[in-house]
């Protein structure tokens, strides 16, 4: 087992829930509320130095009982060490976890994809929009186990929606806010835009990197 687990236990106590080794790779389960704090510690502690975020993804099991898992695959480029950190999100509560974009810009699109495919919300993400599916996609979250392989809507309904689609819907709210072309938007999108419901694209000058 990766010695980092012991250091984590010393530093965070009960926030480190359990750890196991699978196929020679260490997996550590942490408290979902403290994910960012723990990952920041792993990144910034010189002895650990997990500076590279390889991947962020999520897992849902076929059995409906176990919680969803958010998976962070970490690596220390200098030490050559790898660690997989998981946070469990019970299905009966809000699927929310802190974003790690402040630590790694790499998490930006990875978290957007998890949000898109699993419906997990990342708090403080600067631009949490769907990544692969389109903004007005209404069928739900495709990688959830309750999502049928062929989609929720019938083929006829999918065709009907495609033909009835408003081409403006293919621009994101952020771009339309750039263009100030809000007047021919569907009213619900315009209202959301005016309320500022979704995140905004950062201004060019403000894009600082951690």
């Amino acid at each position, binding site marked *: 087992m990766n010695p980092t687990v012991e250091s984590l236990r010393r530093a965070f106590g009960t926030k480190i829930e359990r750890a196991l080794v699978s*196929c020679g790779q260490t997996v550590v389960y942490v408290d979902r509320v403290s994910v960012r704090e723990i990952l920041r510690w792993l990144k910034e502690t010189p002895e650990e130095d997990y500076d590279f975020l*390889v991947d962020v993804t999520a897992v849902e099991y076929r059995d409906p009982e176990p919680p969803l898992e958010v998976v962070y695959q970490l690596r220390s480029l200098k030490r050559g060490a790898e660690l997989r950190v998981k946070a469990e999100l019970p299905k009966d509560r809000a699927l929310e976890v802190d974003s790690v974009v402040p630590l790694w*810009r*790499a998490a930006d699109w990875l978290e957007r994809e998890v949000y898109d495919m699993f419906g997990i919300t990342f708090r403080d993400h600067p631009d949490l929009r769907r990544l692969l599916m389109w903004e007005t996609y209404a069928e739900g979250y495709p990688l959830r186990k309750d999502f049928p*392989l062929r989609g929720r809507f019938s083929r006829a309904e999918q065709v009907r929606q495609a033909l009835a689609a408003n081409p403006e819907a293919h621009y994101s709210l952020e771009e339309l806010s750039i*263009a100030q072309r809000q007047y021919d938007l569907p009213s619900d999108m315009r209202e959301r835009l005016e309320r500022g419901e979704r995140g905004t694209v950062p201004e060019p000058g403000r894009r600082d990197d951690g």
Partner: protein
Amino acid sequence: MGEKRTVELDLATTGADAAGRPVRVPLGVSGTGEPDLAAEHMLLNVGPQHPATHGVLRLVVELDGEVVRRVVPHIGYLHSGFEKLGEYRFYNQIIPLTDRTDYLAPMANNVGLAMAAEQLMGIEITERCKVLRVVACEISRIISHLVWLGTTAIDIGAFTPFLWTFQEREKAYNLQEAWTGARLTTSLTRVGGMMADVPDGFVEALRTFCREFPPVLDEVDRLLTRNAIWISRTQGIGPMTSEEAVNYGLSGPMLRASGVPYDVRKDRPYLDYETYDFDVPVGEHGDVYDRYLVRMEEMRQSVRIIEQALDRLPDGPLNAQDPRVILPPKSAAMNDMESMIFHFKQVMEGVRAPVGEVYFAIENGKGELGYYFVSDGTAKPVRWRIRPPSLLNIAALPKMAEGHLFADLIAINASVDIVMGEIDR
């Protein structure tokens, strides 16, 4: 001039003013005359059907004159739900899906997937299989880089390298076709072995390729590397420092061009890569030019690796001697009761993987290609995740392109070397 306002240009039609001079008359707006371009930012849509976006990538670009102020990439036009499909398939049935992710290097994808499943199931592969997989990975890298080199040169305005590189790529594709029977949908590997051994004459043909390919590469090198136009279009364009490259999760040639000497083949060796003698080129400035140099050198190193692999190619069995995972030969399955049972169980029930999970990464042409499997003990994975190198590399495009000219955005986008099948999956 006050603060700049961003509008889309209204559609305009041509007309004439009272003196008969031609003017553009905006549609649906009263008044005539040109819009005041200097006072506005322009919003420009590039793609998804634009030849310079290398696939169905769509970029919404905010321009101040010719200077890029902001880029918002849009992806998902090629989304096929591969990860979802994988949850409904046996491990061997997932291999054809990997052909279609990074479709410029399908053999390397096949190898990565088979090795991830083997690590999950604890299967040892034979020596011959290991060496042939190295050959497959390196041919894929050469093909992938050749496509990159040719298309990038075209994007920047040099047409000839495209013809030369695609000729060489055709030769590599002929080898691939002789081996796998396919140019794109190779499905070369199986869990525990390979779909097929190399055909007669393959080794000699590959040696010929390894002899004749580097001189062509040298010609491209002579044409571009010290070419004043090429240098002025690429040096200092889209730079990423090493800290930024690590923070943005770049991998492969993108990461190494920024001065981070990380190569999965060296740092987390698989397929006995640690026993091969090859160098990992590392750039200094992280700009388009360094990415070009890194990929050029990687192709030469791949040739070195292929030559070493061919020298050591051992005889012996190709597939693991495990009747639970490797299909018996057809003659045995038809004549021998036990073989028939194994055949039946594999085809009907698949191969069960133990409960567990594995993340396995290979270095393919684009960067670190990772496969993450979670198994609940059945013959189909609970979760199959592809860690796509192109996705993370292209996510840094807005950062790289801001403040550059629009023409440089095309060069930067080309230098990332994306393949949309992998980004959208």
